[in-house]
């Protein structure tokens, strides 16, 4: 759908504080900029909440907030992230994503053209992933008190398998599959934000992961645990899981794919790709007897075509992540104390 926001001609070209007042301008903003993109039975009701049908069994409920500069980056934008991020969180719990909410926090002065691009991107991503936006909210903050646009989405999904997929299900001997090369989102966004140039253009890996998970479940493979790699990267995800599951995790650095552009940027800036953000990669903990079949299924999915086994769960209960490097030496992975900062020379 290509709906251009008509407010640009009616009330100027930018968001004003009045658009968050709850009055006429707010209503106009919703009716002319938001609802046309999120057109369904629930938004038509224009009620305080959405009454949605629930199947028997369990549902999964999650929420995520999206703050990113720049709003548009190679391979994605904040709107796409806001849909895929929540869809991916549902998928990682083994749920089929069904419904989303959308809360927009707009900064006074945001061009309607920007808002329109973002909402259109959200609508496209929702349609692609088969989810419906059923409720939402809009607020406007004074100029200088926001970063253009913040988005929160919450999501509800229905469990697509009878067994829980969660850290506590992780078992010794599980193989760990990584769905593709790491670090592309973090480096692409940093390059765009800081004006860094590379010989080959680098795109964010931003992608929905529910399809790949669904393929596994449909084939009768229920991973013990799934985790999408977001901020903090692969290393942080592994450390979190080792601690929650109270299990030891062993990974081989040589088996972790890192593209040349990401590797080159990280070498230059002194960053560790293991800690760089991703938005379309996940790890799956799979029973050893199912791992070959899981790899073959994931390899056929567009987001899993680069899937590799990167390690396994050990017998020990020391809940550490041990990385063996290409020279055969081992070290422990930890959470970073804060942000990764580029080095000096």
């Amino acid at each position, binding site marked *: 759908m290509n709906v251009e926001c008509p407010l640009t001609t009616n009330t100027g070209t930018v968001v004003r504080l009045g658009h968050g007042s709850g009055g006429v301008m707010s209503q106009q903003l919703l009716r002319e900029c938001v609802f046309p993109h999120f057109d369904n039975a629930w938004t038509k009701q224009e009620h305080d909440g959405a009454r949605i049908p629930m199947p028997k069994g369990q549902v999964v409920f999650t929420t995520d907030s999206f703050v990113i500069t720049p709003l548009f980056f190679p391979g994605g934008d904040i709107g796409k992230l806001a849909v895929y991020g929540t869809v991916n969180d549902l998928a990682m719990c083994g749920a089929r994503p069904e419904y989303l909410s959308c809360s927009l926090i707009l900064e006074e002065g945001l061009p309607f053209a920007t808002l329109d691009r973002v909402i259109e991107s959200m609508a496209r991503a929702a349609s692609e992933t088969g989810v419906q936006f059923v409720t939402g909210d809009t607020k406007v903050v004074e100029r200088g008190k926001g970063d253009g646009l913040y988005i929160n989405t919450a999501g509800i999904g229905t469990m697509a398998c009878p067994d829980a997929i969660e850290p506590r299900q992780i078992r010794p001997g599980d193989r760990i599959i990584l769905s593709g090369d790491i670090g592309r989102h973090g480096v692409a966004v940093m390059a765009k934000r*800081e004006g*860094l140039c590379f010989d080959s253009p680098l795109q964010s890996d931003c992608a929905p992961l529910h399809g790949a998970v669904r393929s596994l479940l449909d084939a009768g493979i229920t991973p013990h645990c799934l985790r999408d790699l977001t901020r903090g990267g692969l290393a942080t995800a592994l450390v979190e899981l080792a601690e929650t599951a109270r299990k*030891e995790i*062993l990974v081989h650095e040589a088996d972790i794919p890192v593209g*040349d552009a990401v*590797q*080159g940027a990280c*070498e230059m*800036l*002194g960053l560790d790709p293991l800690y760089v953000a991703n938005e379309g990669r996940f790890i799956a903990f799979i029973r050893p007897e199912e791992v070959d079949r899981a790899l073959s299924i994931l390899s056929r999915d567009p987001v899993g075509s680069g899937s590799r086994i990167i390690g396994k769960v*050990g*017998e*020990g209960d*020391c809940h*550490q992540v*041990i990385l063996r*490097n*290409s*020279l*055969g*030496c*081992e*070290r*422990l992975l*930890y959470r*970073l*104390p*804060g942000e990764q*900062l*580029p*080095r*000096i*020379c």
Partner: protein
Amino acid sequence: MRYLHEYRQRESIEKIQTEISRITTRPWTIMEVCGGQTHAIVKYGLETFLPEQVELVHGPGCPVCVTPLGIIDRAISIAARRGVIFCSFGDMLRVPGSERDLLAVKAVGGDIRIVYSPLDAVALAEDNPDREVVFFAIGFETTAPANAMAAYLARKKGLRNFSLLVSHFLVPPAIEAICSTTDNRVQGFLAAGHVCAVMGYEQYPPLARRHRVPIVVTGFEPLDILEGVLMCLSQLEQGSCRVENQYARAVDRRGNAPAQEMVKQVFEIADQHWRGVGHIGHSGLRLNPGFADFDAEKRFAPPHTPRMDDSGCISGQIMRGLKKPCDCPHFGRRCRPEQPLGAPMVSSEGACAAYYRYNRQVTTDER
């Protein structure tokens, strides 16, 4: 990836390991000067490829670590001023001053920007003519040319709202100082390849002769470092003290002449205080009189409050090769990356940060 993977291969490393074991007949202590080399050594576990008799100690080549407390306090004082945009390399933001760090100033409203190049700070000054833009120009000979270029360009563009807070260090005088101490343990040096890529290595032969130490200009990849160690050990075993260049793919004897010329145009040699190490004559750079107008110390006159660096940090002994990070009673206890007592625990080139991040014990037998 070219220029990376071929220097990280186990087979090549093992060949060097075999040769090192073959030629080593007695204990030797070798210092790698640069923090980047220290990190590679600890990250890749390179000491496990060396015989027990060979000890690597970690030098003062971490720019963040040696920047004196006083100048960090002055940076914090300038950065906290209204109207100032304070630009810094990211690594400096977490270094503790007497009372707080630059990140704490940012958190309460200071306009502090991480830049990737000093020229980004010049561009910020052009884009913000009503703001004072200050660049925290720190580092060794590696960052000096680009920092000099920033001052040179700012003068050429007639920017009156741009200045530099300078804290620059020179490596050869530090090696000289380490060799001259009575308790020196270092018998050979791996010189920092990137410093030599800029400056060449013609300064080193007199130093090597005077103190009878072999100096090997060395790169940063695992294979580079072990090859540098092998070349250094080979000289030590033969009793020679020459300067050799392991990093010939990046370094030649004379270095980068245009970069040296830029440094000469903007800076002059000055005495310098190295945090933890102390005063070393002629070991720093400051803006020369032609660029005095761009000196942030003169423009803002931040208070010089002498403070004792009494945190308990033993970085000076570590950077002179007398101790290792794990010899410090505070390492990993009172001093951790999220609450550092000293800069070496913060910097991506600091020895303590390297040990904390890469060298803690793997506590299991199962693989």
